[in-house]
């Protein structure tokens, strides 16, 4: 099924996705270590009866967490979509260019140094992401501009090199730190303070909107760099912009919540199955789809072994692999 990407159809699609997201959010607000009724959720949101425990749970604990899940889910899904177009490869995911390895190394080095720096690990993680992004960009150029092929190679090589360094540093950490690191490496939404979420929101929202502005160019870029140039696309400018925006989205997401897997690959694929390859419909679908998927996964992570929590990356991995295999069987059948 594929919709024709007219302005009207894309608006209708957005409305449907927003409705689905609202439903997922309400479910996530209600469920958890303490189950709340929808009535309690509603009054908690509206600010009535602010002394009750239910309202506190809703506003102080769950609402920020759900907002974070939406932001990170959308960021990873849109980044995956952008990179798949940039590399002209439907198997690309947000981590293929090494950003997550750079962020992980930044976080782990902070933990190793310990003390005050350990608390600032999101910052060091982001710094790691930005450094890796710049490094891969410089490596990925050929004849003065980005080449998808060289970029992919540069990213893969960098990712594997950084992974080796991460493993080495892990051997230097104490056992307690290693466990904490493992939680983060798999993806974990539980340790993010509200102030970071407030900073994350405008950054991710703006990056997604700007990337959306390149939708029509991304459609043409899928044809190949030369064909796109013949249709009037400024290939160098579009590729650089998409690279920066996708890397930024990945860097922001990974810096606060670790490398949550499968989202950045699965959601764009599901999006393509639903709406086709036109990015004017695909990017919003990926953004909302990623938000919904991570909200659902995080709800499961919080409720499956309540009152304990699973890292959300474990849920996406365990749930994601079978879904992906199923999709593979369906499309190749």
């Amino acid at each position, binding site marked *: 099924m*594929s919709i*024709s*990407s*007219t*302005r009207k159809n*894309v608006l209708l699609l957005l409305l449907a996705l927003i409705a689905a997201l609202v439903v997922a959010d309400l479910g996530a607000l209600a469920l958890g270590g303490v189950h709340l009724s929808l009535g309690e959720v509603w009054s908690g949101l509206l600010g009535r009866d602010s002394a009750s425990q239910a309202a506190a749970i809703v506003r102080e604990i769950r609402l920020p967490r759900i907002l974070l899940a939406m932001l990170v889910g959308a960021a990873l899904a849109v980044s995956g979509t952008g990179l798949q177009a940039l590399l*002209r*490869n*439907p198997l690309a995911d947000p981590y293929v260019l090494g950003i997550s390895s750079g962020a992980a190394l930044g976080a782990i080095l902070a933990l190793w140094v310990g003390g005050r720096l350990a608390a600032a690990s999101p910052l060091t993680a982001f710094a790691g992401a930005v450094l890796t992004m710049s490094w891969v960009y410089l490596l990925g150029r050929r004849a003065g501009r980005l080449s998808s092929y060289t970029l992919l190679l540069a990213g893969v090589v960098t990712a594997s090199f950084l992974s080796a360094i991460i493993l080495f540093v892990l051997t230097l950490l104490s056992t307690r730190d290693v466990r904490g690191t493992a939680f983060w490496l798999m993806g974990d939404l539980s340790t993010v303070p509200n102030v970071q979420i407030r900073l994350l929101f405008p950054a991710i929202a703006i990056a997604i909107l700007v990337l959306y*502005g390149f*939708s*029509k160019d991304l*459609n*043409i870029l*899928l*044809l*190949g760099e030369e*064909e796109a*140039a*013949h*249709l*009037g*696309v*400024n290939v160098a400018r579009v590729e650089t912009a998409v690279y920066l925006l996708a890397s930024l989205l990945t860097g922001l997401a990974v810096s606060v919540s670790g490398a949550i897997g499968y989202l950045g690959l699965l959601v764009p694929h599901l999006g*393509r199955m639903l709406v*086709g*390859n*036109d990015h*004017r419909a695909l990017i919003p679908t990926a953004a909302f789809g990623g938000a919904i998927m991570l909200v659902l996964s995080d709800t499961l992570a919080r409720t499956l072994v309540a009152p304990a929590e699973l890292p959300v990356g474990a849920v996406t991995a365990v749930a994601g692999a079978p879904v992906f295999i199923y999709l593979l069987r369906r499309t190749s059948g």
Partner: protein
Amino acid sequence: MNLRFPSTTIHSTAHAAGGLIVDSVSFRYAQFALAPLCLEARAGELTAIIGPNGSGKSTLLEILSGHLKTVAGGVYLDGQNLHDLSPRERARKVGLARQETILLFSFEVREFVRQGRHPHLGHSLFESPEDERWVEWALEKTCLQEFARRRVMEMSSGEFQRAVLARTLAQRPRLVLLDEPTANLDIGYQVEMFRLLRELARSENFVGVVVTHELNLAAAMADHVVLLHAGQCLRQGKPEDVFQADLLSQAFRTPVLVDRNPSSGRPRVTWVAP
């Protein structure tokens, strides 16, 4: 033997009619050089570029599209130098249809043809109703309306080539360049493609330039032929003037006979049995 029109003659005739003027362009790669070439193609006509492999046909086509910068000389469409245009402005005037690889990403035929409107979208993210009208028009001209919702990857080679042509037409270009549009097509599709090109060139009044290996189709359908060999223009003119047995035998390194096609009266090339 080089045949070159003096510059003044080219400018006076083709400027009035509207068309493509290639004025002394030359180019070089590491191992290959395109000698200073002049050629002229009129609007409303189909011009065929023929020649052996390695003679520079595809390079010339890239130069005509304005994308390959020449070492010297200029390419003028309707009097305007193509190098002076931005890539987007150029994409509004020049359509280039080449051998395409089928993509990893599938599109419907209508989406595929709609991509031809990209140079005209300007700042808008979506196509206007007028853009959609041109997409319909392109689908209609190439008889692809029933295929509009079909996936591009599910089409046969002949149908896919028509879709590529439709996308180029949707650009509404003044110059349509095609690089071997009939490769991998059966004889029925070959004839149909050339007939369609000639008819469209006439009705839409664009300059049609086709690079092809199909000598007899070129002879039968083209109004003007350019024979390239080792980066030089051996001869250009009407099919009768270019399709000479001695010239073709020399260029293609194999003896050929040239007689008349009984149905069209145009030259017909047959290779001599070894």
